[in-house]
Structures are given as structure tokens and as C-alpha cells.
């Protein structure tokens, strides 16, 4: 006789495998991966001269471009797919069927999140793979460590974006509203918060608390800062606050702290989404 947790674990595995397979067969996956691959390839080609000179272990316009572009497409894809994740089910009734078959609601939400993360991982791997292949003639094996960390934080930011997307999906009335909200949230996280910090910082003459708030409120900003530290950013790139934090905590701890912020942005939204969906189902 099997224990209940084991049965639930197997049901979750099967549900996740089903959702991941469904998501990966979606029409937009190949397109998103191709777009990201081309974008990263272009940035790598434009920066080849720079990377040949100083590798990836220094902050240069080329390295900043790779970090910035690397975050844009995967986080957008994850937010939009996450926002669409639960509403597709409302329309085709699959969720109702799954619930009738005894599936747990939290498992359905988790399986949906993992499916979106799988798509995001494909997009990140495609872009990073293209960039690494192009850079192989220009950088050295020692540059694999910062490159690997940048891929990791990009993947984490993509996962956090997927989680925020699922939360939007749980709160929105319909699919269109969810997708529009997801695009707006992505614009806010990718650009809007930086604009607010720039404008408010220049008006107030101080930006320290604003930057801390931005890093805490924005997983994309946190990923970018962690990537900058991994690239060996100094006071001329990180600014006085970033340098103080980096020197006080040490680069490793500062990066770990930012990774924890991104992890929190993954766990909390999906938990709220599960609770919100549960409340809606019960009512």
C-alpha cells in the first residue's frame, strides 16, 4: 500500500509532465527562442572585438548589452505565458476535469508554473548557447564562471517573472486582461522602475534607498545587479551604494542576497496565486 504523499507526488509528476509537454508544443516557443537567439547573437557579434580584448570578466558596453538583452526576452515571454496559463484552462474546461479527477489545485498551479519555466528555460538556453558559441573564439575558459552566473540569474529572473505572470493570471478576469496586465508589469519591471529611480533620485539628490527598494521590488533589477557584480563591476559602474554593499558584504554574499530576493519573487506570487484560485473555486 502506497503512502498518500507518494501518490500525490506521482500525480504532481504526471500533471507537470503533461503541462510541460503541452507548453513546449505551443506555437510561440520556437519563435521566442529564435528571437532571443538572434538578439543575443547580434549583441555577441557586435561585442566580439571587446570580448577578444578584455574577455567577459570586465564591465564593458558589450558585456552590459549581453546582460541587459539577456534579461529582456525571457522575462517578457515568462510573464505573458504565465498570465495566460490559468485562463486557457477556464476556457477549455481542462482544469475542471483535472479537479474532478482528484487533482490538487495547488498542484495544478505549480504544474502550470513549471510548464512556463520550462519554456523560459528553453528561451534562455537558446540565447545563452548562441552567445557562448559565438564568444568561444574571443573569451577564455576563465570567463565561464561569470557567464554561467549570468545565465543562472537570468533563469532565476525568468522563473520569478513566470511566477508573477501566474499571479496575474489568478487575479485577472479573462485572458486578454491578464496578458495586457502582464505586458504592463513587464514594462514596469524592465524599464519603469529604473525611470522612477532616475527621476526621483535626480530630484532628491540621493538614490540609495530608492535603489535598495528597486532591487527588493524588481526581480529583473536584482538579477541585473547580481550580474554586474559577477562581471566584476567596480565603483565606477556600481556607484557608491553598490560598492559599499559589495565591499561590506563581499561580492559572494551580495550576489547571494540578490538571488534570495529573486527566489522570494518566485515563491510568494505563486503561493498567493494558488490561494486566490482556491478562493475563487470555493466561491
Amino acid at each position, binding site marked *: 500500500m502506497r503512502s498518500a504523499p507518494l501518490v500525490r507526488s506521482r500525480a504532481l509528476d504526471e500533471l507537470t509532465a503533461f503541462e*510541460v*509537454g503541452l507548453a*513546449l*508544443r505551443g506555437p510561440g*516557443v*520556437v519563435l521566442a527562442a529564435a528571437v532571443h537567439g538572434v538578439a543575443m547573437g547580434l549583441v555577441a557579434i557586435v561585442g566580439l*572585438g*571587446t570580448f*577578444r*580584448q*578584455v574577455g567577459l570578466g*570586465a*564591465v*564593458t*558596453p558589450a558585456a*552590459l548589452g549581453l546582460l*541587459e538583452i539577456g534579461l529582456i526576452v525571457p522575462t517578457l515571454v515568462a510573464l505573458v505565458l504565465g498570465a495566460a496559463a490559468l485562463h486557457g484552462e477556464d476556457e477549455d474546461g481542462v482544469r475542471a476535469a483535472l479537479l474532478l479527477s482528484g487533482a490538487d489545485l495547488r498542484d495544478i498551479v505549480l504544474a502550470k508554473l513549471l510548464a512556463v519555466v520550462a519554456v523560459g*528555460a*528553453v528561451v534562455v*538556453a*537558446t540565447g*545563452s*548557447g548562441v*552567445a*557562448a*558559441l*559565438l564568444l*568561444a*573564439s574571443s*573569451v*577564455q*575558459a576563465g*570567463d565561464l564562471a561569470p*557567464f*554561467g552566473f549570468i*545565465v543562472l540569474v537570468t533563469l532565476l529572473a525568468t522563473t520569478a517573472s513566470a511566477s508573477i505572470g501566474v499571479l496575474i493570471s489568478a487575479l485577472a478576469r479573462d485572458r486578454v486582461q491578464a496578458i495586457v496586465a502582464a505586458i504592463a508589469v513587464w514594462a514596469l519591471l524592465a*524599464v*519603469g522602475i*529604473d*525611470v522612477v*529611480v*532616475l527621476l526621483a*533620485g*535626480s530630484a532628491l*539628490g*540621493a*538614490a540609495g534607498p*530608492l*535603489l535598495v527598494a528597486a532591487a527588493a521590488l524588481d526581480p529583473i533589477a536584482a538579477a541585473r*545587479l547580481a550580474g554586474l557584480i559577477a562581471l566584476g563591476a*567596480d*565603483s*565606477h559602474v*556600481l*556607484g*557608491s*551604494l553598490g*560598492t559599499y554593499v*559589495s*565591499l561590506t558584504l563581499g561580492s559572494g554574499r551580495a550576489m547571494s542576497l540578490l538571488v534570495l530576493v529573486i527566489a522570494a519573487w518566485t515563491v510568494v506570487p505563486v503561493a498567493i496565486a494558488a490561494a486566490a484560485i482556491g478562493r475563487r473555486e470555493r466561491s
Partner: protein
Amino acid sequence: IALWDVTGALIRGNMIEAVRDGIYLSYASEVLIDGNRIAGSRYAVHAMFGSDLMVFENEIRGNASGLVLMYPAGLTVARNTIADHRAAATGYAVLLKDVRDPRVVENEIVGNAVGLKVEGVEGSASEVLRNAIAYNAVGVELSPRSTLTFSANSFAGNVLDVSGNGSLAGIRWTKHGVGNHWSGHAAVDVDGDGRSEADHVAVTAGDGLTAAVPELKALRGTIAFRVFERAARWSATAAGAVIVDRSPLVAPVLERVAPSRPLDVPVAAAGLILLAAAIGTVVRPRLRGALG
């Protein structure tokens, strides 16, 4: 190597690593520092006061700072390679503080936090000529009220070519009608004389902002920061500019040649693994679906 109150010294061909100051000069005069390799130290060359110092054809890499030259009179820094100085609090390839009539000529200043830091330089013969200042976080950092002429230098791949605030009226960006090469300049050379007809103007926009609020440097490179800089450039006047080069060069005079590297197998393997994982993840469920 430390010299105090010495006249007429030659320091040549030494390899110095992991010390406090590779070469320390105090009140030294007529000194030639030539053909040394200095790495992994606090300062590669640290000179205080003295006169007629020449730092020539040295290879200086990976120190907290490279050449830290304070208060000497008569200084030439020529044909050195000064690279990879990225210490968080310093990271200057060349620091000139209160120097009269320095000449910085044909050096490769590459991959540093700051390529050339200028504080209180004066004298009508102060010149920075034909250097490659490339791939630094900041190419040249200027303090107000310095007097210096930049000509025939190549600025390439720096996050910020020139940083400066306050009065930069003493900085000239051409000599005898020859400006500098800027990798970010869209050159227009109608008459084919190798000089762009379009001025190269860089405004204080982003730099002025980060000078006033240094924490905002952390946003440099973001889309928002670039939009902010672009908008400020459109609305800028020459009076608010850090750089006004009336005769920018179309091609660099001293170009740093990238070392040719063989294909790095671990990096290529990492790329192939990532791509194979992505393709396999997408193709497998489609194949499974197609095969029923």
C-alpha cells in the same frame, strides 16, 4: 625599488610582483623607468614630488592602480601597456595629481576602472597624444580647472569615454586641427581628409547625473539610463558638454590590436550543451506527440 632624493637613475628590465609599491620615487630627479614588468601590487609606480621623470615601455598589469604620479614637475609617460587595474576603490591606470606639463604619449590603456585620472594638471605643454584608451569603465576622468590637450587618441569600447564636471574650459580636444578617434562617433568625411566634418559632442547628461548622485551609476547600461542620456543629448548645447571635438578622426592612430585566440573548447562546449538542451527539450514532446 625605492629611491629617495636621487638624481640621474635608470630602472630597467625588472620584473616586480605582489609588493606594496613596485617602484617608489620620492624627490627623485632625472629618472628613466624603462622596460619593467610590474603586476599584482598596490601601485606599480608611485612618484611623489621630484622632476624630469620618464616612464617608458613598461608593462603594467593587474595592480590596484598603475602609475600614481603626484606633484612631479616634468613628466613623460610613453609607450607603456597599462591594463587590468580594476580595484573597487582605486583602479586607475594613470593618476596625475598636481603635475605641471605632463606628456602622456602612445600608451595602451586598456581594461581599467579609470584609464586616466587628472587632478590639478596645468601648464601649456600638458598633452595626451596618440594613446589607445579602450575598454575601461571610464576612459578619462577630469577634475575641474585642469589644463590639458588631447589629440590623436583612440577612445574605443569604454563604458564612458570621458567623465568630468565643473569647469572644463582648460581642456582642448584638438591640436593643430587634429582631434581624437571616438568609437561612438558617426563620422562624416566628405572631403576624405581622415577627419570627420561632424563635431563629436558628449554631454554631461548621464555623467552629470551620476556625479551629483553617484548611486545612480548602478543603472548605467539600462534601457532607462540610455533613453535618459539620449534625450539629454538631443536637448544639449555645446556649453553643457564634457567633450567638444571639432575635428574627430575617422580612423584610430594607435589601435590596440586584439590578440588572436584559438577556439576555447570549454566555452564552445557550454554553448553546444545549452543549445542541444534547448532543441532537445522542444523537439522531444513534438516527436512524442507525432508518434502518438
